[in-house]
């Protein structure tokens, strides 16, 4: 489950919340409108009734009026009517309204009246529509009507508002979470795919869900870019390869010619020697081209037919046996210790080649009297081979680039070689999805080759 902040950042989540908010406001407006119309209608009806009563009461004389008021109050079983008759001085004569409300115009116009002083089983609510009229006799007649149903409706509408509002908000949040799940999942897929691209697997494309939404559009654009990048990379590679390949054939013939010339110059030692130097120069060039083509060959080898269960121990032991004389010649001690005897799924020949390059480098960069320690072990990250030299070490900032083609560190310029050794190692490591780590030690460089395939997600 993704963290809430992650959900919050998705556009689906925000949009859903926005829609939820807009919906709540729309409901508020709608209910408000209903209330306003309903209340208006009810008040007009109430006012009608009051006006008709007033008109009827106006025609009566004082005694008849008092009689009529009492009569009406008896009839009013629902207790919604308010009557009050007051003399000129404002004293209460008859009716359930005890005191004359102040400040109301005495022309019979309808007013809203709060907190009227009503006696007995009067209206429960203190909110009334009422009119005060001065009769010809000088007395003041007040007729009012409770608007309790209106208040009830208002309460119903308020409750509905609260309920609908919170339900809508809740539903909005839930929908937003659910809606943002799928884009988040797709983003994760896209992230995983792009990580593989970053690691150099340019054939990978971003997943397209087929919904033709923004994510699909974006993924489509990136995929078209990747197509183009892959095409360009392929072109660069094939140009490099064909240069190496095309130059190799004439170089080989040139070597044959110079070699034959050298054989014929046996009698003139000076020329013989020059020819010999020329041959070895050409050999150096050829070795470089060969290494370049070798890298391409390894990189092209997507198939894993050469893979088998092999013993790392055997590979390392063979390497040590192969390089032991060279180490001795350089005055370097070569040691080997195995603390584990793991078997791995790998191309034995390529792994041997990679290890050869590492050991070759280690011996070359160690000064006479130095030590090259090779060890085989296993830890949480799987089986690993360590090659530790006592050379000048690779500066931190150079560790990434040493694996690029032709790169040679400052300290490596004096040493012989094509500058392609570590590139070959890197290509082999990539093919296996193993990992090569270079780190510094107190006395040199440690190259660690982790021999278990990385998971794709990492």
């Amino acid at each position: 489950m993704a963290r809430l902040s992650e959900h919050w950042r998705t556009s689906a989540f925000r949009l859903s919340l926005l829609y939820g908010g807009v919906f709540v406001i729309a409901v508020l407006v709608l209910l408000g409108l209903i209330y306003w119309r309903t209340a208006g209608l009810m008040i007009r009806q109430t006012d009608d009734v009051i006006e008709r009563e007033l008109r009827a009461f106006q025609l009566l004389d004082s005694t008849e009026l008092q009689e009529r008021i009492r009569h009406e109050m008896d009839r009013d079983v629902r207790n919604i009517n308010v009557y009050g008759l007051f003399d000129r001085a404002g004293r209460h004569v008859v009716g359930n309204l005890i005191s004359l409300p102040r400040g109301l115009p005495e022309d019979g116009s309808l007013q809203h009246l709060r907190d009227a002083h009503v006696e007995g089983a009067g209206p429960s609510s203190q909110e009334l529509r009422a009119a005060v009229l001065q009769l010809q006799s000088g007395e003041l007649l007040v007729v009012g009507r409770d608007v309790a149903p209106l208040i009830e409706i208002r309460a119903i509408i308020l409750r509905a508002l609260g309920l609908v509002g919170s339900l809508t908000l809740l539903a909005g949040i839930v929908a937003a979470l659910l809606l943002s799940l799928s884009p988040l999942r797709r983003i994760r897929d896209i992230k995983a795919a792009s990580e593989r691209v970053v690691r150099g697997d340019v054939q990978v494309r971003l997943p397209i869900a087929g919904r033709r939404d923004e994510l699909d559009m974006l993924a489509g654009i990136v995929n078209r870019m990747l197509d183009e990048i892959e095409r360009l990379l392929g072109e660069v590679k094939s140009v490099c390869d064909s240069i190496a390949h095309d130059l190799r054939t004439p170089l080989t013939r040139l070597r044959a010619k110079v070699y034959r010339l050298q054989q014929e110059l046996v009698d003139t030692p000076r020329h013989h020697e020059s020819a010999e130097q020329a041959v070895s120069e050409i050999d150096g060039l050829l070795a470089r081209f060969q290494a370049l083509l070798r890298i391409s060959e390894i990189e092209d080898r997507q198939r894993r037919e050469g893979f088998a269960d092999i013993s790392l121990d055997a590979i390392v032991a063979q390497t040590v046996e192969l390089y032991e004389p060279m180490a001795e010649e350089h005055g370097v001690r070569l040691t080997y210790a195995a603390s584990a005897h793991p078997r791995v799924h790998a191309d034995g020949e390529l792994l041997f080649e990679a290890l050869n390059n590492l050991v070759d480098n280690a011996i070359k960069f160690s000064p006479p009297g130095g030590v090259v320690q090779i060890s085989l072990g296993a830890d949480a990250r799987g089986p690993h081979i360590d090659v530790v030299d006592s050379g000048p070490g690779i500066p931190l900032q150079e560790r990434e680039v040493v694996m690029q083609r032709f790169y040679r560190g400052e300290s490596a310029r004096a040493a012989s070689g094509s500058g392609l050794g570590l590139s070959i190692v890197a290509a082999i490591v990539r093919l296996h999805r193993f990992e090569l780590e270079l780190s510094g030690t107190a006395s040199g460089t440690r190259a660690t080759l982790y021999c278990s395939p990385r998971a794709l997600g990492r």
Partner: protein
Amino acid sequence: MTRVLIIEDDDATAQEIAAELGGHGIETDHVADGAEGLRRALEGGYDAVTLDRVLPGLDGIDVVAGMRARGVDTPVLMISALSDVDERVRGLRAGGDDYLTKPFASHEMSARLEVMLRRNRSQPQSRLRVADLEMDLIARSAHRGAREIELRAAEFRLLEYMMRNHGQVLTRTMIFEAVWGYHFNPTTNIIEVHVARMRKQIDASGETPLIRTVRGSGYVLG
């Protein structure tokens, strides 16, 4: 006179092979077509065949398979621009005796061919002898005259290979393939160092040197 059949559709390569082998006193015939090549190889009369892997008409693999199917065991050196390990395995499985990738150094080609020509005649032996150097493959010991030579495992395999092919130029690549069994180019002069160290053991001071370096090419024992 040794005769070699060149089945190769690239004229320049064929000429190069013919020139190099001519220099070694070997007579050559050139055929550019696979079917014709197979016909000529089946007629017999050749000591070895160099066979291009990719040919018009009949493929190199088909040619060598056809030869083997009819019981013709003339040694075949397969030459190919396809350097993939799988290709090498396919070529050797079809009946090729050795496999060389284009472009090749002509000395490498002739050295391999000469070893093949000789290998055909050599019988399995348990004792090898070159001049006063003797090797017992069963007791795993070696002597130069009366002097016993201490050999490490790799040196033993190296000496055995050189003695089995004594008098032949053996290139570094051939040695690496035969003694260590790998088919890539080792990074540095690693084979030279091995040969030099073994040479110190074989050719003690005062003795006639048995191992000779052929500049720009390889080594010869005996």
